[in-house]
Every structure is written in structure tokens, then in C-alpha cells.
């Protein structure tokens, strides 16, 4: 296997009036979790379809696990697992039958298939309900089963589209742990699309932001946060009144400042020293109890990027 799991070069897909993916060039190292972020209609699902060889690119190329998507789509699909926009479960069949069907598709021998079904269903806590028809299950239970189905055949590359949607916090955390251990323990590459930026921040070693098919940024979450420039500071205390706020706003290093429920929320223009501002506030009569400094969250970066491109 190559060190690069996915490589796209100017990947473009044009539909009748819409360019769903526009000159996308990315490289995803094997064994990592890659977050693909973007608002609805950004081109995330189309990108997954292109990478799985379900759609042909209009221009450009994509290489997945060493195979060209145009010429070796079958080879790619053999080595990949996918949990797409919908769970894709056969709701008239039982949980066991669903996994058995996909196990047969991947030619897993009977004994191994049965053991794997037991292992997977026990892992997600649904083994006792294996005979139940999936259509009667809650969305969260179906989502868990769909994830189990996607990794059932131990793929080298996993595409997951909004995997924690509909899961409760405990199940979401368990799934995140599973995805992390897949990448770290088994070297599986995970291509994750999500709206949950906290999730992306926790899981992904690399994220890309896409809007209207165009790649806006790609890199480690920390790198992207650094690109947002300013330091975000939250100041708690007493006497953080209008006079203090006005003085703070007058300082050249301050980008934005506002009072939120008695707390001052300050965004610095650059990663400058904050101590002079503390002195200024104290000298103006403020009694500071707590200061919390942070670079912008991935969500801030994401929103800023998406807004900039509008």
C-alpha cells in the first residue's frame, strides 16, 4: 500500500448547471483521519462518490489506495467501506441478516462471518436484538449498525458521512473512540465528513474546508486555527463597565471587544501580549478575577472562511 491513501489533482465534477466539485487537489496520508468540512451543498457527498468511482470526474483525476478511480473503481470499492448520507440498511431484514449480507458480498467465510457478526453486534451492544427487524429500531441504533456494517470487512479506507448524526452523546463518544482506534490501531484511513466541528477537531489530524466545490483550506486543525490570526480572550470580574470597554477598544492591538453578560470578550488582531491590556483595565478600576485565552475554535475558523467566500 502507498503512504498516500487519497490523492486528487484538479478533481472537478460538473453537472448540468452546477459545478459540484471544482479543482479539488488534496493528499491524504494513509492511516489518518481526514475531516472534510463544508456547509450543505458544498460538494462533500459528490467528492465521496467520485472517490468511490461511483461518478466519473469531468476534469482531473483521483487516485485512491493506489488505484485510479476512472479505471480501477472495482478495486477501490473492494478495499473501502462506506457509510454514506443514509444508513443504507435493509429495514425489512434483521440486524444479523444485514451484516450477513454484506459479509457475503465481501466473501467472508461462513465461520468467520458468524464470529464477526457476534463480535460487531456485541461491541455496539445490540447482540441480544440481532433477530429484530431493523426498521423497528431507533435512528441511533440503526446508525450504530450502519457503522458496524461499513467496517465489517475490515476496509483499508473508510468513508463516513456524518457518522454521529442521530447518536446520543455516549454513543457519539464511543464511535469517535472506535474511529480513532481504527486509524491508530489498525492503520485504517478515515475520510470523515461532518458538520460537527468539535468532533473534527478531536478526531482529525488533517481537515479540509470546502465551499461550493472549492477547497478553501487544508491542514491540521491547529494550523487552521492559527490562520484565523487573533487571540480570543474572555475576561471575568467586576467593574467591567462601558468605560473600561471603550478604553480597551481604543487600543490598536484590539480587533473586537464586547461586553457579554458582564464579561469582556476581546479578539486581538495578532498573537500579541495581553498583559498591557490587563494593566489598563486594572488602572481603570476593573477587578479582574479570571482571564481565559484561546485561539479561535475550528468552528470560528470555519465560519470565517465560509463567510469570506460569500
Amino acid at each position, binding site marked *: 500500500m502507498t503512504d498516500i491513501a487519497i490523492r486528487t489533482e484538479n478533481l472537478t465534477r460538473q453537472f448540468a448547471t452546477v459545478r459540484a466539485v471544482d479543482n479539488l487537489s488534496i493528499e491524504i496520508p494513509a492511516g489518518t483521519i481526514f475531516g472534510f468540512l463544508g456547509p450543505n451543498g458544498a460538494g462533500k457527498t459528490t467528492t465521496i*462518490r467520485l472517490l*468511490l*468511482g*461511483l*461518478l*466519473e470526474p469531468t476534469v482531473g483525476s483521483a487516485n485512491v489506495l493506489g488505484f485510479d478511480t476512472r479505471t480501477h*473503481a*472495482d478495486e477501490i*470499492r*473492494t478495499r*473501502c467501506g*462506506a*457509510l*454514506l*448520507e*443514509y*444508513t*443504507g*440498511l*435493509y*429495514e*425489512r*431484514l434483521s440486524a444479523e*441478516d444485514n451484516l450477513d*449480507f*454484506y459479509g*457475503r*458480498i*465481501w*466473501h467472508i467465510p461462513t465461520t468467520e462471518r458468524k464470529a464477526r457478526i457476534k463480535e460487531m453486534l456485541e461491541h455496539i451492544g445490540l447482540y441480544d436484538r440481532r433477530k429484530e*427487524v431493523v426498521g423497528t429500531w431507533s435512528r441511533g441504533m440503526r446508525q450504530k449498525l450502519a457503522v458496524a456494517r461499513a467496517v465489517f470487512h475490515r476496509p483499508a479506507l473508510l*468513508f463516513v458521512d456524518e457518522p454521529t448524526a442521530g447518536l446520543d452523546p455516549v454513543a457519539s463518544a464511543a464511535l469517535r473512540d472506535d474511529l480513532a482506534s481504527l486509524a491508530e490501531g489498525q492503520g485504517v484511513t478515515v475520510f470523515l465528513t461532518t458538520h460537527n466541528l468539535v468532533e473534527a477537531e478531536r478526531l482529525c489530524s488533517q481537515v479540509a474546508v470546502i465551499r461550493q466545490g472549492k477547497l478553501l483550506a487544508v491542514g491540521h486543525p491547529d494550523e487552521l486555527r492559527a490562520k484565523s490570526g487573533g487571540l480570543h480572550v474572555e475576561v471575568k470580574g467586576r467593574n467591567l463597565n462601558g468605560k473600561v470597554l471603550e478604553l480597551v477598544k481604543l487600543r490598536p492591538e484590539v480587533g473586537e471587544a464586547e461586553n457579554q453578560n458582564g464579561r469582556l470578550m476581546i479578539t486581538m488582531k495578532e498573537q500579541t501580549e495581553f498583559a498591557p491590556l490587563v494593566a489598563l483595565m486594572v488602572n481603570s478600576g476593573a477587578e479582574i478575577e479570571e482571564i481565559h485565552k484561546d485561539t479561535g475554535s475550528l468552528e470560528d475558523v470555519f465560519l470565517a472562511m465560509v463567510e469570506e467566500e460569500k
Partner: protein
Amino acid sequence: MIGDIWTIMRKEFKEFLIMRGRRVGLTSIAVVVGMFGLFMPLQSGPGWFAQPLVLFYAYLPFVMAMGIVADAFAGERERRTLENLLASRLPDTAILFGKIAFIVSYSWGMSLVSMLTAVIALNLKYGHATIAKSSTMVIAGMHMSMLSVVVGVAFLGLILATLMTAIGILLSMKASSVKQVQQTMGFVMMGFFLVPTVGAALIPHTWMSKLFQSASAMGVKEFALLVAAVFVLLDVVLLALAIARFKRAKLIMD
């Protein structure tokens, strides 16, 4: 490849059987076999296989296929399972032929089981000698034994089941819902009956006479073989069209 086709067939059968509940599914099978394998033949008597009504065994797969084929792709699309299936390692031909094989084998199988049940039931009630004597069909002077009738009807049933399945699959691949396929199938079926009827009325009298003369000169056996050959050709063309139209990119529709 055969294994992959079998995997799809197996899944389709399981889904179909429990679609309305396992008990209801099995009951509906029992009703068809009971009706056409026991009730009608036993009511008719030992000469059942010499009656024109026996052709119903050939028509039965056609009707049964029509009832389930719409679900093949449109149903999967409607239930949002198609894209995940297409994202699997299964080759195009395995998915396509798995679905075709299920519909043909189910609809044709029901006809075969009904016919076989009728043969056994009549033999048990009247004895083999009586059945063999009463079931000789005479068409235009040509004597056909019960075995010939059964084989001929079974073959015709297979051709018609394949024909309906191929038409339905082609429609199902394009449609966004099962209902849409069923509606279109209604028009197709109307065409099936209207085209020969209207065509016969429009063809000049002299041409029709010549056609009948040619058919009479040909002999019943040859004429039946010619009709069968036309249907087989139609099946092959439609199946080839289905293979050509099976494109993953086209099957994924939002």
C-alpha cells in the same frame, strides 16, 4: 460471479418473503399453489392438461414478475439502500443478474411448482393411465402428450417471465419510485395488448390472408417454434439493453 449473483438473490428472496411478514409471505405462496396446483386442476378433471386453460401456467410467471419487478431498483432507491449497495465491491453484472434471477426464478418457480403439484394431484386422484389418455392435446391434427404440454408451457413461461422482468428492470433502473414504475408498466402492458389488436385491424386484408396462409403451411410445431424464437430474441435484446444501461453513475439519483 455466480456466488455474487446468489448473494443478491438470497437477499432479495429474504426481503420479499418478510416484506408483508413471513407468515403472510408463505401464505400467499400457498394460496397461488393451492389455486393453480390443486383447486383448478381437480375441478377440471383428468383432462386438465389437454385444455387451453393450461396456458395460464405460462401466463402466471408473466403476471407474477410484473407484481414484483418494480421494486428491483426503484424500491432500493426509494428506501435509500441503493447507493450503499452500489458502493460495495459487487460487480455491475452480479447486481443486475442477481435481481433478474430472483424475479424470474420466483415467478417461474411458482408456475413450475403449481404445474408439478397439479400433475401429482391428478395422478393421485385418477391414476397415471387415465391422465395420460385424457391429457393428450390435439392442435390442428397434431397430438401432444401431457409431458410435451408441460415442457412447452414451462418453456413459454420462462420466456414470458424473462420478458416481463427485462422490461420492468429497464423501467425500474430509471424511475425514482416504485409507483412510477408501476404506472409506466400499465402503459407498457396496454401497448402489449393494443399493438397486436390495432395492428391486425390496420393491416390490409390481403396481407393478413397471406400471413395466415404462411402460418398454416408452416405447421403448428414450426409456427410455435417461430413465435418462441421471436420472444427469445426479444428477451435477449432487452437483457442486452439492461446490461448496457446499468451504469452506477446513472443509477445514483438524488
